[in-house]
């Protein structure tokens, strides 16, 4: 059997974990799920046994404790391989498992084939490059890159078993003590339906006023390139890319951004990309769906004006909709 760490939130398994359950089935063995803290229904995802680990000290995330739980359960079940999603948490916990078991770990895999050795494809450079590798290990440890494997439903009769781990003080020494919530409203960059992003071409901190205006008209969030954060024009929390936030909006508007691979690593998940660039040959043009060539300082305000104008025409008569509601 193979053991899969299943992360869950709000009573549901997260999508990257469901994708991982699909990937784990390619080993052709029974799949067991490990849930930490509480149980969620996994019967649509081919899970033979869902192990629910519970412990008084697991009220908040403790990565060494999670690793200890995985090792204890995998040993007890004689798991042939262990999988987790390539999320921040999945990668962290599996690296700790690998360090404990003194075994190799392949992170962010997009394909895995059973065999000896296991052959796999994994992401480098935030997904801009792929690597084909052989994993020589008595117990392959694998994380699956989020959103690279489609969830395939596979109904199964899942039995649920409780698991009580033995945890030492040392394993609980690294533990989340408090969660500080992001204050301020605003649309979260990672979840925005529209992201209006500015690069070096915006020219200055003040230049972002037209980017902000368009973003707020569209009910979206402002993003930017690394050149912009390095110049101090915007905070790093606005940066899109390999070392910034990964976004997946309906529309990503890249204004004065050349389209470096490390930037595209953050917006590859966008449904559509509109590039506004003075250079018709900029690399972003090969990665965009729509393009406008010219000076963003003229084009962006013209789009905002056009939106206002068309809303004045299309807007419903004054009624129950609050001002600024999207049409």
């Amino acid at each position: 059997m193979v053991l899969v760490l299943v992360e869950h939130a709000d009573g549901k398994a997260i999508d990257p974990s469901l994708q991982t359950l699909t990937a784990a089935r390619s080993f052709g063995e029974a799949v067991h799920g490990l849930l930490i803290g509480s149980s969620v229904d996994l019967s649509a995802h081919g899970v033979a046994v869902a192990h629910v680990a519970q412990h008084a000290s697991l009220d908040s995330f403790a990565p060494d404790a999670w690793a200890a739980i995985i090792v204890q359960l995998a040993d007890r079940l004689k798991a042939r391989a262990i999988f987790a999603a390539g999320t921040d948490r999945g990668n962290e916990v599996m690296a700790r498992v690998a360090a404990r078991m003194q075994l190799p770990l392949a992170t962010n895999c997009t394909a895995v084939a059973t065999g000896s050795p296991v052959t796999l494809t994994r992401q480098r450079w935030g997904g801009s490059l792929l690597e084909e590798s052989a994993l020589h290990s008595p117990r392959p440890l694998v994380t699956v890159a989020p959103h690279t494997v489609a969830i395939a439903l596979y109904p199964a009769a899942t039995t649920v078993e409780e698991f009580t781990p033995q945890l030492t003080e040392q394993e609980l020494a690294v533990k989340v003590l408090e969660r500080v919530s992001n204050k301020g409203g605003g649309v979260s960059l990672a979840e925005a339906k529209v992201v209006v992003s500015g690069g070096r071409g915006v020219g200055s901190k003040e230049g972002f006023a037209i980017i902000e205006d368009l973003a707020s008209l569209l009910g979206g969030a402002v993003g930017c390139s690394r050149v912009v954060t390095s110049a101090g024009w915007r905070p790093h929390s606005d940066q899109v890319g390999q070392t910034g936030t990964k976004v997946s909006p309906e529309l990503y508007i890249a204004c004065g951004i050349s389209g470096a691979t490390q930037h595209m690593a953050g917006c590859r998940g966008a449904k559509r990309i509109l590039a506004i660039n003075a250079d018709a040959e900029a690399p972003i043009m090969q990665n965009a769906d729509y393009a406008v060539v010219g000076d963003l300082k003229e084009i962006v305000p013209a789009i905002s004006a056009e939106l206002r104008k068309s809303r004045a025409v299309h807007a419903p008569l004054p009624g129950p909709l609050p001002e600024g509601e999207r049409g």
Partner: protein
Amino acid sequence: MVLAADSMSLETRHLGFTISPHEECGVEEAVRLIEASGGESVVLTLGPIEAAEQLRDAMAIGIDRAIHLQTDGGEWDPESTAAAIVDAVGAEESASGPFDLIFFGNESADAGGFQVGLRVARGLGRPAVTGVKKVTVEGTSVRCEQEVDGGRDVYVVPMPAVVTVKEGLNLPRYPSVPGRMRAGRKPVAVSAPARTQARLELERLVVPAGQGRRAELLGSGPSAAPAVVEMMRRIGVA
């Protein structure tokens, strides 16, 4: 991305090497901590002869000295890398006492293994916190803030500790000319560790297939605005 002829590495002839963003923030944080509280900072890399330049860059912004674990240029797997770093840190510490903090990048920009820092922490028997965007030393402990969806998770662990960091931790400074001159005189300890057989064995690099996007030109200059808004209405975002 352009591959070398054997598909085992990137064609780097036209690329410069730099310290990657996460690690650059780690270097900057070390310099700031030492400026604030005194002590010594050391930078370490495992890499080919050319990597000496990045060690100089780190010393140019204020790191005191460097350790260069020299390789013949081939890529090392994460297990071998971590083992060599554990050995080097161990040797260093038996001579001059433990490092209170060891910073790593959360993940390397190229291989993206997400593991070397955690393997080293385990090898040295130290607590480790990952993905850190704020570090505060509080007496003999370190408070770490890790960015998560919707906020930040706070950890406090005793030192000595390992902290893996992400870009955004700070805004790294640029080296000054006097800083560069001083860096030229700072010591670099060079050694060549032995490499063990990789168990995660790279066979070939592949450039992913393009997404088949070909931008549809909506126009040039501000007169394109109506076509843009029309597109936005069509896809339901305006």
